């Protein structure tokens, strides 16, 4: 993965170690500490370039360092392959749950080996997602499949549900692996490689309850404050996300409706074939063509069944992912707004307060840096996300169109062979030629 990227989670979990003394008392400002770590870490990337960023790195250079390059997803340079498969159920005294096999093959030097195989459950994926979001509040994390099915009709251990989930989890990890920043996350590495015991203890090292509480309080406060002067581009983004969310949800609903109607059509069509077959039993001359038609209708039923399955298994999951993406984007924009609100509040406070001006100015600077950094991160990841969205949806629609063409082609062949058989018959019997 090319591009000059910094990873700030390399030593996550040890956040306390890097807290500079002057703000060590402010446990609530934990994300600032994370940000600080960005500038102090030495990250080696696969292309050999390393960043020697320090705490004093200016915003300007930071912006440059945060630009992703366009060809980052070139398949030839892909150096990590992650697969999620093989669901298995586990029964304990307290609960039953499913684990999935996560297999990693990589040539990256930061990995101790080139192949890893671990088992993970949904909770673990949730944890990883949370860690990434915490570390990068304004980066876009691909959504996970939902916790449980909303409709309540499918049970957690239903085969189709498990397969749908497995496929979505697979996509999730691959999206992480493709992401210039997330893929070098320490949490990600541990997720892929650690034994279950190691993972559990690593999980425990995360920010504690208090810090999470602090996050929430801050977020609420920021939300209440609101943003005064949001840059136009982020307002544009927000408007786009609102509209996109609506449209993609509509498309998702339309597609689900199509699946429903198609299934009902199939139910009716399934009765046609047998009716023709029944009829053929009363006939003599007509018996053969009727039986033939019955066979054709049955074949078309099979094709229809497979076409519906394809829609269900391929288009709908992708649409669904992007419905969830829209929510993610909204959250990301909210978080960015909160950071800005925080900065604006501190600016105001500095203007009005008399005491502690130095400390406040320091904090303001850090907040400003944080904001700058968050904005740039979002802008870059936004471009990246849009590209990915375009690719994903385009290929999903193309795939669907191709499948539909194939469906019609197969049905066409069925009926043409019927015509052919009747033609041969007609010519054999010297009947009327129908061209």
């Amino acid at each position, binding site marked *: 993965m090319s591009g000059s990227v910094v990873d700030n989670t390399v030593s996550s979990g040890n956040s306390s170690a890097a807290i500079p003394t002057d703000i060590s008392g402010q446990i609530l400002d934990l994300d600032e500490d994370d940000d600080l770590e960005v500038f102090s870490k030495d990250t080696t990337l696969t292309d050999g370039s390393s960043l020697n960023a320090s705490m004093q790195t200016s915003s300007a250079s930071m912006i440059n360092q945060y630009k992703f390059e366009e060809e980052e997803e070139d398949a030839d340079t892909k150096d990590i392959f992650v697969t999620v498969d093989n669901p298995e159920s586990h029964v304990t005294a307290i609960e039953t749950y499913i684990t999935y096999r996560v297999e990693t093959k990589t040539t990256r030097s930061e990995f101790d080996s080139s192949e890893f195989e671990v088992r993970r459950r949904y909770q673990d994926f949730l944890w990883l997602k949370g860690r990434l979001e915490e570390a990068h509040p304004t980066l876009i994390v691909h959504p996970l499949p939902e916790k449980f099915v909303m409709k309540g009709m499918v049970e957690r251990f239903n085969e189709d549900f498990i397969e749908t989930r497995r496929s979505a989890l697979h996509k999730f990890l691959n999206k992480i692996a493709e992401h210039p920043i997330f893929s070098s996350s320490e949490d990600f590495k541990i997720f892929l490689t650690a034994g279950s015991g190691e993972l559990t203890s690593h999980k425990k090292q995360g920010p504690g309850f208090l810090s999470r509480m602090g996050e929430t309080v801050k977020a609420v406060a920021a939300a209440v404050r609101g943003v005064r002067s949001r840059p136009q581009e982020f307002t544009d983004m927000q408007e786009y996300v609102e509209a996109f969310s609506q449209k993609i949800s509509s498309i998702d609903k339309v597609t689900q409706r199509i699946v429903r109607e198609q299934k009902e059509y199939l139910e009716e069509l399934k009765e046609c074939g047998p009716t023709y077959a029944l009829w053929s039993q*009363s006939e003599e001359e*007509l018996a053969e*063509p009727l039986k033939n038609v019955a066979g054709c209708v049955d074949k078309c039923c099979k094709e229809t069944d497979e076409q519906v399955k394809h829609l269900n298994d391929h288009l709908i999951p992708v649409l669904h992912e992007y419905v969830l993406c829209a929510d993610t984007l909204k959250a990301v924009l909210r978080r960015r707004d909160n950071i800005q609100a925080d900065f604006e509040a501190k600016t105001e406070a500095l203007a009005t307060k008399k005491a502690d001006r130095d400390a406040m100015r320091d904090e303001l600077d850090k907040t400003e840096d944080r904001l700058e950094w968050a904005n740039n991160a979002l802008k870059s990841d936004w471009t990246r996300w849009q590209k990915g969205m375009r690719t994903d*949806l385009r290929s999903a629609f193309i795939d669907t169109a191709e499948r*539909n063409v194939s469906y019609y082609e197969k*049905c066409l062949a069925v009926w043409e062979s019927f*015509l052919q058989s009747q033609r041969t018959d007609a010519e054999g019997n010297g009947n*009327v030629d129908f061209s």
Partner: protein
Amino acid sequence: MRERERDAEQGDARNRTSLLKKMEISVAEAEKRTGKNAVNMQETYTVYLIETRPVDAASEGTNPVPDSLWRRYSEFEQLRNYLLVTYPFLVVPPLPEKRAEFVWHKLSADNMDPDFVERRRVGLENFLLRVASHPDLSTDKIFYSFLTEENGWKETVFETGFQAKADSRLKALNATFRVKNPDKRFAEMKHYGDELQSVISQLLRVRARAADRLYGVYKVHGNYGRVFSEWSAIEKEMGDGLQSAGHHMDAYAASVDDILEEEEHYADQLKEYLFYADALRAVCRKHELTQYELEMAAQDLTSKKQQREELATGTIRTFSLKGMTSKLFGQETPEQREAKLKMLETQIEEGEELVKERNGECEEFVKSAWVDIERFKEQKDHDLREALISYAIMQISMCKKGIQVWNNAKECFSKM
């Protein structure tokens, strides 16, 4: 329908005398009329324009204006009832349905609906062509005047007295009776008619439901068109591809109307044979009645003969109330007996005549019916096979449209 005309003409030698050889027939138009009915109430009804033109005229290139007259559905019904009564041994072509049945939701069940009227117009034309190409029916004078005499036809047909005959026949047919020696062939034919009716009904029902669903599938795709269009407004690079794909989705949604209209023709072809099945069963039933009446006459004759024998020999083998009463209240006089015998002789004579007559009728019926049933079988096999072929052609056309639309959509998606 022209195809049937052609087929009928190209068909077997028997059609050489068919009316269609001499005359072009069509039901060209339909119109709404209002008028006062029998009970002086205002009603709206549809009339159909029957056009006829001698075949030679057209081929000579003179192309004269066809003769034409207007008829309403009820008159067609009268014609058919007349034919049914006059030719009970023939499988009389059916009329298009009186009310729309096997309707899927988009189709109207309203008799005044223009689509229904149009399909009925086609069906009526088909009926006339069927009759006109039938070797026996086409020579009927009443049929000819139905086509050519606007006024006075109703009186003419009434004068044939067919209505009274129809009513009495109907009564007899609806009564329950059992034939002692049912004709195996006719019994099988009737059974076939039952099965055909049942299976075509089922097929029409299933087809209507499937059509409903298919309509839904296609129309929902129209929503893609709308949403893609709206979505394209907020996208830069994807916009054009989405917008044009949306247009194809609209086209796809719209294409189902034509598809289902074509399928409706197929359904009409099936319906014709659904009603034909009924006509076939009617012939078998009428044969049964004829046979029953023959059996009744024969039975009556036998009983009369037995009575005569008993009276002549004085033995009573058969129970008769008269016999019983005479036993109880005393024998009859020789003169009375003589009178009775004479009466019986007359009755027996008449009875024998009746049996002979009915036997002849039965034989005639069987002969003619069987010829027509064979003709009908051939026609049915040919027509239904053609219908199945045209159904396959329709399906192929539908698939081709689908392939085209989705290939176009795919191209648009690639430009996203």
